[in-house]
């Protein structure tokens, strides 16, 4: 994706924009600033992204913005979920500073999906400021979710085919991840469900109802009459990806710092590599009762934030570094589903203790497979 020229980033396609409902409003209604032929005057008080707080869009799009602030795109709650678990309350302020410098830019506003490219990839209007109901897969979704999800889905990893939903179905991201998911429109689950019950508590993205769920389209899988015997045999013991995903990217050792030369934040990831490992589901729950899931190594390290202070993650072992993953490279036929013993007894594809770094053994106890399922037909 070629970067936009500076002028292109702020160029409005007059005819197309004026033909839309947004084109009927004064620019200053959303952006503030002043009507003036002088640039400096016009830009005084300008709000470049009026959707950053969602309030401007909420004026007309109340349904879409009602629960939006709690969506992960806005709250970035996943980061703090992990940071809080591995850190300690006395480090909160230091980590907030780190977060502001290195993580907060992943915050996504309405405009980051519907008007512009995300700021983290340089920003700029997607279609001359014409609001796009459906975000662009390449210029919005994979602009941020590119190095793992995007490359997997589009088949950009060497010798690894793209996801069958893309290759054969030509499905884009929103085919599965619809507006209600992105806008968190279903957040009002508390209106019907008693969230004091563990079954209805959503503590991370792998608890709570699956959305999207493979079964939403593949309705007969594992059910009576399913022609694929393996689906029936394995039932809910395996996450779909265990049989239908192939190698995906894992990363090690991300460290962040502020450049002494430029004063800008940067990161360095020690290593990235393709891997495929089946491990134990660390948090089986009502919606994901699987015993086995696939695991991706995340780049967290005990020293990831040492630029900001020593030992900021004293409880690093509280969470696995090999984490429950949902790779986006689904295939009907995979090496591990070629036969029973392509998986059973094949210790190369199970995350056993010998494949985990000694210093991460404790953290990964919940996901390490103690004993590989034996080969079938062997004594």
């Amino acid at each position, binding site marked *: 994706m070629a970067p936009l020229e*500076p002028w292109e980033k*702020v*160029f*409005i396609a*007059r005819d197309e924009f004026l033909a839309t409902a947004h084109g009927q409003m004064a620019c200053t209604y959303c952006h503030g*600033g002043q009507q003036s*032929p002088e640039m400096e005057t016009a830009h005084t008080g300008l709000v470049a992204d009026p959707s950053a707080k969602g309030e401007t869009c909420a004026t007309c799009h109340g349904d879409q913005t009602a629960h939006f602030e709690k969506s992960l795109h806005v709250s970035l709650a996943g980061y703090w979920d992990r940071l809080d678990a591995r850190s300690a309350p006395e480090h909160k302020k230091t980590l907030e500073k780190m977060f502001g410098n290195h993580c907060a830019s992943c915050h996504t506003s309405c405009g980051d999906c519907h008007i512009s490219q995300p700021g983290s990839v340089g920003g700029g209007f997607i279609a001359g400021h014409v609001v796009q109901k459906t975000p662009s897969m390449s210029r919005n979704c994979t602009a941020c979710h590119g190095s793992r999800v995007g490359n997997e889905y589009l088949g950009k990893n060497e010798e690894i085919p793209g996801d069958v939903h893309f290759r054969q179905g030509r499905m884009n991201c929103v085919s599965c991840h619809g507006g209600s998911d992105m806008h968190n429109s279903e957040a009002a689950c508390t209106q019907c469900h008693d969230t004091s019950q563990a079954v209805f508590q959503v503590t991370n993205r792998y608890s709570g109802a699956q959305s999207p769920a493979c079964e939403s389209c593949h309705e007969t899988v594992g059910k009576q009459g399913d022609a694929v015997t393996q689906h029936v045999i394995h039932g809910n013991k395996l996450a779909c990806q265990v049989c239908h995903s192939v190698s995906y990217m894992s990363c090690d050792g991300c460290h962040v710092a502020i450049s002494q030369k430029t004063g800008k934040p940067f*990161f360095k990831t*020690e290593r*990235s590599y393709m891997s495929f490992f089946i491990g134990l589901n660390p948090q089986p729950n009502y919606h994901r009762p699987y015993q086995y899931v696939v695991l991706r190594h995340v780049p967290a390290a005990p020293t990831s934030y040492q630029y900001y202070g020593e030992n900021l993650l004293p409880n690093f072992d509280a969470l696995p570094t090999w984490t429950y993953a949902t790779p986006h490279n689904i295939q009907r036929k995979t090496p591990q589903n070629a036969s029973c013993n392509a998986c059973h007894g094949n210790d190369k594809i199970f995350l056993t203790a010998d494949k985990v770094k000694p210093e991460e053994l404790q953290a990964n106890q919940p996901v390490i497979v103690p004993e590989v399922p034996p080969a079938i037909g062997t004594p």
Partner: protein
Amino acid sequence: MVKWKYFVTFLLASSFLTACAAQEMTAATATAPTHESAAPAATLLPEPAPVVDHCLECHTDKDKLTALAKEEETGHNSESEGVG
């Protein structure tokens, strides 16, 4: 006769003023803001585009933008290495 003219004029004027007063009362009653709906309605109406929109005049002029637009010096993650 003159007295009669004054009387008719007075009558017409009174009728006219009474009618106006009644209309004003009706209008005032009809548009009296209710506690629930009036305030939000006023803020919900988007401001219409002005006849000459200076913002649009500039941001649709490629040559002008080419001359004025500068690359933002975000430099974000410029020294970063590896997969983000």
